[in-house]
């Protein structure tokens, strides 16, 4: 374990150094790039928990990402306008309020979606999670008060006491901190008693039931936890980009998160972050020399999926065994 921790500390130091590196090399877009990677990494990591560890193929994960983002957006909107949400809850631009709120609301959304979806399995589960994501998407698009199709502009990043959140680097460092805490929490979760049960359910649900485990309950808790992670990522993203859009919830966004999970290698805690880095790096680099970068992403993904022996799920099982 020691070596792994040293590697992580080095990585953390590198991440902290990014704003300085950006200034020195004149590559100011580096901060934006790495920040996005970290945030997507959190979202992908939360998906990995139910997908890679839990074996639940949810195509609706983007919904919770979007819900978290919209909590920030809606709260800012009301703060800016001086109005109150539903007439009772006042708006706010304080990150100490919006982040936890985003996590809670996303968790509630996940509880609702999970409670219904987890009664099914297989392709029905994939379809029903996808359907729920689309429902959230259309709901948000139809609310003109909150921008409808155009989304919400969050002109100023949420405030944190004692810090100048207008400074790009400060915001970035806050994101690094949150990511680090999230990573440690995820690692703990995976190695916990709960994590072992979830991994067992993925491998053989019948056996777990024979051991007296009410699998529905455990899967639901895992689903909620993962939704909360996605909500956190969404809230950070809206703060970072200062814009909340319904596209955050579109099912194709769920597909992107899945690609990140796959590219990074399922079943490890750092994998999704690597996958996020890979996809974002691929997109920015390929986009640089062709506007048809979607084509190349598609080709790469296709090759990765077809070339993996025993399929991605086989890879999941193999890696899961190495626990």
């Amino acid at each position, binding site marked *: 374990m020691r070596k792994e921790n040293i590697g992580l500390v080095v990585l953390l130091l590198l991440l902290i150094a990014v704003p300085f590196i950006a200034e020195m090399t004149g590559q100011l877009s580096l901060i934006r790039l790495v920040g996005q990677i970290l945030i997507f990494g959190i979202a992908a990591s939360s998906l990995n928990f139910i997908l890679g560890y839990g074996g639940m193929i949810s195509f609706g994960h983007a919904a919770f990402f979007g819900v978290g983002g919209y909590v920030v957006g809606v709260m800012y909107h009301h703060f800016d306008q001086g109005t109150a949400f539903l007439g009772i809850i006042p708006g706010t631009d304080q990150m100490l309020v919006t982040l936890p709120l985003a996590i809670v609301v996303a968790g509630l959304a996940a509880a609702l979606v999970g409670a219904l979806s987890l009664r099914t399995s297989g392709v029905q589960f994939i379809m029903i999670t996808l359907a729920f994501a689309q429902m959230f998407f259309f709901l948000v698009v139809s609310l003109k008060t909150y921008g409808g199709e155009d989304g919400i502009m969050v002109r100023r990043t949420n405030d944190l006491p004692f810090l100048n959140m207008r400074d790009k680097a400060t915001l970035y460092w806050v994101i690094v901190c949150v990511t680090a805490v999230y990573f440690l929490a995820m690692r703990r979760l995976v190695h916990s008693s709960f994590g072992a049960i979830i991994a067992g359910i993925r491998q053989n649900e019948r056996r777990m039931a024979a*051991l007296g485990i009410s699998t529905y309950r455990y899967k639901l808790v895992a689903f909620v936890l993962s939704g909360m992670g996605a909500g956190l990522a969404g809230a950070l993203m809206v703060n970072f980009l200062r814009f909340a859009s319904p596209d955050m919830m579109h099912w194709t966004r769920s597909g992107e998160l899945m690609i990140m999970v796959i590219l990074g290698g399922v079943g490890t805690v750092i994998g999704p972050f690597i996958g996020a880095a890979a996809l974002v790096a691929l997109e920015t680099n390929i986009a640089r020399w062709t506007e048809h970068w979607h084509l190349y992403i598609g080709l790469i993904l296709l090759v990765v999926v077809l070339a993996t022996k025993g399929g991605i799920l086989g890879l999941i099982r193999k890696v*899961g065994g190495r626990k």
Partner: protein
Amino acid sequence: MTPVLEILNLVKSFGGLVATDHVSLDVRPGEIHALIGPNGAGKSTLINQICGELQPNSGTIHLAGRDVTRLPASARVALGLGRTFQITSLLEDWSVRQNLGLAIQAREGGNMRIFDRVTRRADIWDEADALLRETPLSARFDHRVADLAHGEKKQLELLMAMAMQPRILLLDEPMAGLGHAESQMMIEALQSSRGQIPMLLVEHDMEAVFALADRISVLVYGRVIASGTAEDIRANAEVREAYLGEEDA
């Protein structure tokens, strides 16, 4: 003495086919009750109903006096029902030790903890190691279950079922697929728990049945046609015709 497991008038039909035809049987404390019958008699269907994987059309199932007919499978386990599978159902990618540890972990509970470290739960792993030490599986403790021989998997399932400390154990053809030496080992393993844990033993292997069973019931076309001691069953003409007769021929 109230039976540990009591099945009354159980009926299960699939469309026109009656798989379980008003079956009543019980398992008394400390006894091994064997259930035998030709292929297609409906033994698996009966087991699945007792365990909760299948819902009967009518009839009741009582576990230690409690009506469990409508309870889901995992709830029955919590009430003390243990089972082994005819075709082993284990966590193939994990090791022998991990599988056994999981069974103990499930029994112990406290599994909604999300920030503990499962490997540090000494109570679980000490017990797992202790249980393993007494069996030939201890040599393979860190091998992947997928790499085990069939007989070893069956042993592991039995070990895990025992580790759950059940009130009653349902064994679905524990001898299936075992060679002679492995069968002997399995019979010995079951003998050693005889009297402590009541068992409902579904089996084809008559040697095992006669060696282990206190009582035997015979299931033919979904009906129990006879029930009694080994001598009773051997002497029963109807049974001979339906089942043992086949064996002799």
